[in-house]
């Protein structure tokens, strides 16, 4: 196994507040890895450090063997780092297929063309439709996002990121806000994702985490408390204490 994404001694401080405390983390190629922890543990901060939305106070981020700590979000995206957002971040006035097409066009490097009609780039649209079909969303392709059910919007969120053909995929609470009856659809989609993509999922829904992840890391107060297989995590007494004990009244 090779590491596709790695952090060494990653720290982030806002003034006196330490939100990432010396995190060493490794994501293997093709991994199904979950990051869990109580509210305010610094999970989203950690993701933002990985994507380059935040720059660390100390430590390094290594993507595919290359130190990307100083690289911008765009440069990391171009090197195969994709993410979904915890809160839907879609192009609400556009149709589902147009949402995906924008990302396909960026990846193919044709999005800056000034004069040729976009609709003549049929390969962009075809690829977007193909992707939607693989997610079972072909019927919704023409629907404008604002008129789409929330659970399906979460799938569009994933579709846009997949359109970028990432080697590493960071899923920030893919099932957040989705009615529990529909989470199985999200899980079906996650299960069907290409095996070679290394996936890090951040999720509160423990059923989903334990069914999906082969490996779990627990983050508490900005530091890794524990890492192991789902069985090891479930058996560890500290997990119950920190994760389930104090914060869940």
């Amino acid at each position: 196994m090779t590491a596709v994404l790695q952090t060494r001694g990653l720290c982030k401080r806002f003034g006196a507040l330490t939100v990432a405390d010396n995190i060493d983390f490794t994501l293997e190629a093709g991994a199904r890895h979950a990051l869990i922890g109580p509210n305010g543990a610094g999970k989203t901060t950690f993701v933002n450090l990985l994507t380059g939305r935040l720059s660390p106070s100390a430590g390094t981020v290594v993507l595919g063997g290359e130190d990307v700590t100083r690289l911008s979000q765009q440069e990391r995206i171009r090197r195969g780092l994709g993410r979904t957002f915890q809160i839907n971040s879609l192009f609400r006035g556009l149709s589902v297929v147009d949402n995906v097409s924008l990302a396909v066009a960026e990846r193919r490097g044709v999005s800056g063309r000034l004069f040729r009609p976009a609709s003549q780039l049929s390969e962009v649209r075809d690829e977007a439709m193909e992707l939607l079909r693989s997610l079972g969303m072909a019927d919704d392709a023409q629907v404008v996002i604002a008129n789409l059910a929330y659970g399906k919007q979460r799938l569009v969120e994933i579709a846009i990121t997949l359109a970028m053909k990432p080697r590493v995929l960071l899923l920030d609470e893919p099932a957040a806000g989705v009615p529990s009856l529909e989470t199985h659809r999200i899980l079906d989609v996650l299960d069907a994702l290409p095996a070679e993509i290394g996936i890090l999922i951040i999720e509160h829904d423990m059923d989903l985490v334990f069914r999906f992840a082969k490996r779990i890391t627990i983050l508490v107060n900005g530091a890794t408390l524990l890492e192991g297989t789902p069985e090891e995590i479930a058996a560890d007494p500290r997990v119950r204490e920190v994760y389930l004990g104090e914060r869940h009244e």
Partner: protein
Amino acid sequence: MRHNGSYSASPRIGLLEWLPWAIGVAAFFLMPEYLSLGARILIFILYALSLDLVVGYAGIVTLGHSAFFGLGAYAAGILSARFGVADPALQLLVAMTACALMGLATGAVILRTRGLTLLMLTLAIASILLEVANKATSITGGADGLSGIVVAPILGLFRFDLFGKTAYWLCLAVLFVGWWVTRRLIYSPFGASLVGIRENHVRMVAIGSPVPRRLLTAYTISAVLAGVAGALLTQTNQFVGLNVLSFESSGELLVMLILGGVGRIYGAFIGPVVYMIAQDMLAKQFPEYWSLGIGLLLVIIVLFARDGILGIIDRLVALTRKEAR
């Protein structure tokens, strides 16, 4: 009716889209006594179109678009009055170049900001230019305006006549080119990515789009179009006044665009037509109170038709279709 650049929209020019041009040509023959107003309207349509590209498509809100309109007007005027260049094509070219450089230089700085900050900065740039034009009297004529502008016959054939016939055709032809270019841009992948930026700035960054460069390109193209409109005004009037750079000019323009409908291409056509004809008629009927009429028109639009006149038409069409079913 709403024209969103996208990967599914057909770029074919619909039958209805030829209507403005048919009207434009017909107006020349049917209303020969209104040609000077007609030319002014055509100029403002081009000006509004340039604004629609940034406000309606790229989502850059600006109150300083008069900077480019005025720069174009002065560039063409100064070239003729101070350097004796009377060739209209050359005047347009110099105005375009000046505005492209200005758009690039100011856009590179101010487009890093968003929202109210950006709004203030656009306002500041227009104010600075206005003050420069006011003070540099030896070049611009200052508050007296710039006169002594000569425009040679177009292609050496068509003289600028007293009745504004040549000016009208020139404006119509240039507007046609400006419309064609803008429409091409909006239907291109570039146009689609502008709409993406307008809809969700953060996500465009997250899918790897070079957002600042896209915005700067749009801003510069828009500046050039506004500059062409300004230069046309100079050629039509053969005079440039400070008011081309004023805040009122930018504000009035934004009002016209909102009146017609933002982000629809043809809102930029309908807005100036309705606004300027209403203004012309009201000013004749009530020379003292005409601005009250314009004010009422605006209140009605803001209260009942947020998406402008084209928005009303959209809704009426949807309603009749529903009933027909």
